[in-house]
């Protein structure tokens, strides 16, 4: 008896399945082709949903994974290291120069690239007929826009909006908390390397934005972009906290870096050193314009306001 | 003689004045050179000897006056045509790349060779003959940087002869030559006067050599022609003292009865 009813249900079931499948397909057809602008203002038209995506920047790779598109990713760079699953995807090598042959051999239908030093290879890729989106984000807002751009290009605007909303909520939480902190209570923050020339991020950089939003006061905030500064300037500014990024861009051994900072002539009186408030952070959270910027923001807030001495 | 215009002088300078900057190097020079003679130009340093050579060959243009070659104004003749008439043996020059001797001599044929048609057998023949005449054939395959100064001088002369000139000009050709070669070359030069060359003009520093070689001498002093004539006429005590400001002794060569200057 049970089986009989089931047999009646079957055609209905099949009908519904077919209906939804076709609706789903039609929905996809209605979405593509689409035309939009990338971050360099170039118009890109995608005729159909991308199925083979290559990312030539770690930030784009992380966004792809965050959007759940990793099954469509066929190529990534050697520098893409998050999340762990990225190791299963074939690497196209370095970020610059881009390995054109490798890219061609992977037969992508969408390439998510970076601006800056990759810019010279992009015309070549476009000449060869490939769809290239240049993503260049230099602020939190631009990073969120990148997510929207990539989501739109892949036909999953809803998922994109979800992710953006989620990230925005976390950002708002932090900014609301730090808004209430009076100026005087904001820790003076210095971040930079321990090399001969100290490069520190000024106004307009991602790092500076995160420091400020997390309720800190960047001692080089009055300068533009990444600037070389002198040790005297740091000594004069008397930072309360020193943030040491470590990773590929700063490969030296962490303890050595800390020792170098503590032993720098003229810095022994810095509050950060006296109170031993020197923190190492994973630079990927601060240099990459991907979703983990928000992780970095939260980390900074922790460091600034939830820690005394380490 | 020289200042009288003989019929059809080969070279004539009419009232020529030339200066490099503000000081005139040659002033109001009038000269006509007839055919078939070996002419020597002598004078103290700075008197304008080399400048005169360059004016005649058309490298320099006088500010005033006219220079005529075979009665034609030199300004109206193309560089290439001039090169087919006049060839010059420089005092010394530096050849940038290590061409072979035979290639250097062959370059004397350039005024006659069309770049696209290329050279003819005749060009090779003339080059070889020029080397034979100057006894430089044995060096034909050697690089120009590998031979001595004297040998190089002969190669330059060979090149100048290969140019089939009607007027051959030399600027102190004997500087690096050994004793025997000095007179060999002079013999070759005089021989060529019997053939196609119609006039030889040479600048001399050595008065005795000038006296030996030349049919006529032009003595320059401070940009003007001091005296023109046979060696006998030009080389005398008063003239030399005036021009060179030094006393000399002039003797007659025991065999050749030409004046020779001794200090």
């Amino acid at each position: 008896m049970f089986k009989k009813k089931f047999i009646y249900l079957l055609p209905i079931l099949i009908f519904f399945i077919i209906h939804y499948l076709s609706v789903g397909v039609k929905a996809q057809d209605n979405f593509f082709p689409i035309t939009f602008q990338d971050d360099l203002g170039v118009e890109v038209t995608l005729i159909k949903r991308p199925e083979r995506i290559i990312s030539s920047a770690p930030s784009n790779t992380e966004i792809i994974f965050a959007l759940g598109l990793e099954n469509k990713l066929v190529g990534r760079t050697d520098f893409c290291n998050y999340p762990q699953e990225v190791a299963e995807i074939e690497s196209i090598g370095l970020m610059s120069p881009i390995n054109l042959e490798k890219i061609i051999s992977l037969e992508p239908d969408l390439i998510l690239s970076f601006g800056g030093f990759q810019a010279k290879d992009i015309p070549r890729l476009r000449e060869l007929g490939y769809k290239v989106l240049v993503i260049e984000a230099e602020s939190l807002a631009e990073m969120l826009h990148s997510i929207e751009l990539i989501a739109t290009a892949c036909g999953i605007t809803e998922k994109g909006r979800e992710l953006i909303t989620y990230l925005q909520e976390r950002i708002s939480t932090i900014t609301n908390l730090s808004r209430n902190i009076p100026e005087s209570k904001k820790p003076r923050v210095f971040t930079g390397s321990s090399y001969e020339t100290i490069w520190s991020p000024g106004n307009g950089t991602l790092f500076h934005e995160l420091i400020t939003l997390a309720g800190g006061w960047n001692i080089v905030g009055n300068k533009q972009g990444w600037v070389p500064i002198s040790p005297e300037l740091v000594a004069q500014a008397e930072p309360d906290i020193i943030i040491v990024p470590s990773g590929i861009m700063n490969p030296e051994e962490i303890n050595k870096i800390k020792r170098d900072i503590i032993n720098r002539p003229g810095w022994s009186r810095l509050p950060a050193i006296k109170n031993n408030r020197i923190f190492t952070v994973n630079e990927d959270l601060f240099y990459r314009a991907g979703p983990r910027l928000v992780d970095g923001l939260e980390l900074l807030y922790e460091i600034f306001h939830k820690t005394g001495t380490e | 003689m020289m200042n009288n215009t003989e019929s059809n002088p080969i070279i004539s300078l009419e009232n020529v004045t030339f200066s490099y900057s503000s000081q005139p190097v040659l002033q109001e020079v009038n000269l006509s050179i007839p055919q078939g003679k070996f002419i020597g130009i002598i004078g103290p340093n700075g008197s304008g000897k080399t400048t005169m050579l360059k004016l005649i060959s058309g490298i320099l243009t006088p500010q005033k006056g006219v220079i005529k070659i075979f009665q034609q104004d030199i300004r109206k003749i193309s560089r290439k045509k001039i090169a087919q008439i006049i060839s010059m043996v420089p005092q010394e020059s530096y050849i940038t790349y290590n061409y072979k001797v035979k290639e250097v001599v062959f370059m004397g044929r350039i005024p006659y060779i069309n770049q696209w048609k290329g050279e003819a057998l005749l060009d090779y023949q003339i080059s070889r003959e020029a080397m034979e005449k100057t006894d430089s054939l044995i060096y034909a395959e050697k690089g120009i940087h590998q031979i001595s100064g004297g040998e190089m001088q002969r190669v330059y002369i060979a090149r100048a002869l290969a140019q089939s000139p009607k007027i051959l000009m030399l600027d102190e050709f004997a500087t690096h030559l050994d004793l025997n070669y000095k007179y060999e070359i002079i013999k070759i030069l005089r021989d060529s006067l019997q053939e196609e060359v119609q006039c030889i003009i040479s600048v001399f520093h050595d008065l005795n050599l000038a006296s030996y070689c030349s049919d006529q001498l032009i003595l320059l002093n401070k940009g003007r022609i001091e005296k023109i004539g046979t060696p006998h006429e030009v080389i005398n005590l008063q003239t030399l003292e005036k021009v060179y400001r030094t006393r000399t002794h002039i003797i007659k060569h025991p065999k050749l009865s030409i004046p020779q200057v001794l200090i």
Partner: protein
Amino acid sequence: MKSFIKPAQNKLYGYSNWRYKALFIIIFGFCVILVIGFIALNFGTIAIEPKKILSIIWQHKTDDSLGLIIWELRIPRLIMAMLTGMTLACVGGSFQGILRNPLADPYILGVSAGAALGACSVIALQYITGLYLIPILPIFALVGAFISISLVYLLSRKKSHLPMTDLLLAGVAVNFFFSAIITLLLAISRREIHSMVLWLMGDLSTASWQKVFLIVFPVFLGTMLLISSSLELNAMALGEEEALHLGVQTERLRLKIFFIGSVMIAIVVSFTGLIGFVGLVIPHIARLMVGPDHRIMLPVSALAGSIFLIICDTIARSIIAPTEIPIGAITALVGAPIFIHLLKRRNEHDE
């Protein structure tokens, strides 16, 4: 005092038939280019079998990714290397002839500085304005090159003459001046310094058929025109005055070589950046091989330059693939030992 004279050989009075020699060398050179070119096509990040390469070339297949790699990436790059090497070596040899200076290279008369300034300005401009300017970089480089060529010409011109030392000095002065500006640009553009330096060191990776078609005609025409001045360049080697006495119009020759050479270099450099060493040393290698007669030396220079640059480019992009070593470094590393070896052999030969 006539010395023993050898009997004339094959009616040429001791001279060799240089035309047959030149023709043979040119044909041989082209064959070498074809062979080396094919070998070069085998190198790259994606391994493709020689048989497959042959079939792709024969059938002109571009529908699959391998065909695309061969026809759109490797072959244009190969041709670009060939044309660039040819230009640099031929112009270098001509400049060495006209300036009577064995240390002259194609960049000595100021072309490179202007092109470099044009290119670096575009890179800096793109960073400042955020506009997408990279595709028009070659135009800027070309304009820059023409500005520096004109500057050198105007500086060295005296009335209607073009004296040689002034040309050289003007070229050096313009080079210094523009290089100073470039150094300034490099110092203030932190983010773009990478792109600028890569361009300055020479880069054939952006080669495409479009670019090849743009430069192929000027390169061949220019090379023909330069080679046609061989006899006069030979005369120049004797000296400026000597050349005049041989009927060469040295002023006009200088102008001709300067303009033709500079324009050729400007066009090539706009697309490839500054590749050094080739224009300086390949002509010397050619001279060591066939002698300084420009009628053979210039064509051999052109061929040797092509072969040399094809080899260097292949090394540059394969040795530590996928990283590309700047080709300027490879030309120096490969060329210097060859040059020293040839010099030593010549010195021994002359002893």
